[in-house]
């Protein structure tokens, strides 16, 4: 029977959560198609393959000294080898930093259409229909592939992780890897900073809508102080140098879960939301009633943050 194959992902020998989430996606899609779910793990030994087998019934272990760390060329070659050798119909890859780096290449290598950045998949009339965010999360679209095989990348959190009934099988697959054009020198930390916003009970976060550094300080920093909390920001604010990188919330910044998170002038892009959706109470202040941030907020005010925040300061007394 054809297989729906998850490509596992690891950093420093630790599997990503997204890998385990995709095991559930593979089971759902496979059951809709009458296929079987499986995973492929590329690593320097088979330890991680055994771990993944707790989440999916069949695991292919590609073991090679070259696979200790992620590499685009090796991954594309390994995906091609497993897909061609093991009757694979669909390939599921996390839409993560590594996933984005090779998924398109892997799709071309196996001649498959790819739908990237998906948040859902359903099987309709024997075809898999993928749902994905577009226009910075304002619009959803549905797509499928026209090719016999498919590749899809999924947003983190699209599926829950779910252990399998028992340990699955682990089968070694021999792949002869060619060359890679990239050579990793080192991995470095770049966001070190004195402040740790992840400990704060209250966070007031400002986005591009705060317009400029002085205004950001004026509204966001002051409201944070008034509430006895920390101030934070979306990525564009950090990119523009209005505040430190250590205060960035999101996929490439900090993950926070305070009691209260105020998002002002932040649209609610998935990469931002990834870092704050666990907050207990979320307040969104945005002049655009269609901003996606309102879809996850507890309370919302549609209005100009430069009017709303001073009014909040006043109401707080």
């Amino acid at each position, binding site marked *: 029977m054809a297989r729906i194959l998850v490509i596992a992902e690891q950093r420093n020998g630790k599997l990503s959560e997204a890998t385990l989430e995709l095991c559930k996606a593979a089971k759902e899609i496979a059951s809709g198609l009458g296929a079987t779910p499986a995973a492929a793990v590329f690593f320097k030994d088979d330890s991680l393959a055994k771990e993944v087998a707790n989440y999916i019934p069949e695991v292919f272990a590609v073991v090679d000294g070259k696979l200790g760390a992620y590499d685009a060329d090796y991954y594309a070659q390994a995906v091609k080898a497993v897909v061609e050798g093991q009757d694979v119909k669909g390939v599921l890859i996390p839409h993560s*930093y590594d996933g984005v780096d090779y998924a398109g290449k892997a799709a071309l290598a196996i001649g498959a*259409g790819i739908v990237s950045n998906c948040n859902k998949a359903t099987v309709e009339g024997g075809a898999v229909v993928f749902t994905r965010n577009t226009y910075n999360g304002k*619009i959803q679209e549905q797509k499928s592939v026209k090719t016999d095989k498919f590749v899809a990348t999924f947003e983190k959190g699209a599926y829950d992780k779910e252990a399998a009934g028992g340990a699955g099988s682990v089968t070694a697959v021999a792949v002869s890897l060619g060359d890679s054009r990239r050579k990793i020198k080192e991995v470095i930390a770049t966001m070190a900073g004195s402040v740790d916003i992840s400990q704060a009970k209250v966070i007031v976060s400002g986005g591009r809508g705060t317009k400029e550094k002085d205004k950001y300080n004026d509204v966001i920093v002051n409201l944070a102080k008034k509430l006895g909390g920390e101030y934070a920001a979306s990525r564009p604010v950090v990119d523009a140098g209005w505040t430190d990188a250590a205060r960035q919330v999101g996929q490439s910044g900090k993950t926070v879960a305070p009691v209260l998170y105020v998002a002002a002038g932040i649209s609610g892009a998935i990469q931002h939301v990834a870092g704050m959706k666990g907050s*207990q109470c979320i307040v969104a202040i945005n002049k655009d009633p269609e901003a996606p941030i309102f879809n996850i907020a*507890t309370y919302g005010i*549609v209005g100009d943050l430069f009017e709303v925040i001073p009014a909040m300061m006043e109401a707080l007394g």
Partner: protein
Amino acid sequence: MKIVVLVKEVPDMESKFKIIGDAKIDESQIAFKMNDFDEYAVEAALQLKEKFGGEVVILSSGPERVTKEVRQAFAMGADWGIHVSDPQIDEGDNYVVAGALVKAIESVGGVDLVLTGVQAEDDQAGLTGVFAADMLNFAHCTNVVKIEVGGDQKALTINRELEGGLNEVLEMAMPAVLTIQSGINQPRYPTLPGIMKAKKKRLDLKKAADLGISALGEAGSKTKFHKMYFPVSEHKAEIIQGDAKAAAKTLVDKLRNEAKVI
């Protein structure tokens, strides 16, 4: 160093979106601008040119309108450009568009670097750069936040952004495709003399036939579009009504007495 920068025009996301027939957005309501990530790519190319010499070529596929963004890149300092203009290409998926852009890159010849944005704000695919690299048989790296060029101007040392504030530092040889992440630099504003010069810079127009492209439109695509719609959220916020003053007062009251979080 010869650098091609791929520039896409996208809607300003604060525009009022209307969907026509589940299939497309009503463009008459939309203001267009350069994809944010591409502005960083243009700036990165200009900085490399300032250091090492050479030329910066802007490449964009889309309707007549996109010449505005190409000229914006010219005004920032890019040298010349190619406008790939063919509805048959625009109707295709990322695979078709990447294929067309690759043909245009090949027509430039002797390209050392191709820079793209990490993703387009409209389709959020993050595919074009990786596709282009594979089709050109160039090495590539995505989510680039730092570029250093080695002494012989053939070697690159690159920082690739990873999750949790980490960077992977890696080395590779040119030619290469790099997808540029925001924050790598501070894109410059076009100057008035820059804007004046931009009007006179060379902009070649290419149709699918000029580029010898066979994969076109829906037929050439590997994916199929079904429909688009506004997301329906089960968790839509409680929207507090009233003018700023009244709403702020109600909000503070709710945070104190209902949510009990302050």
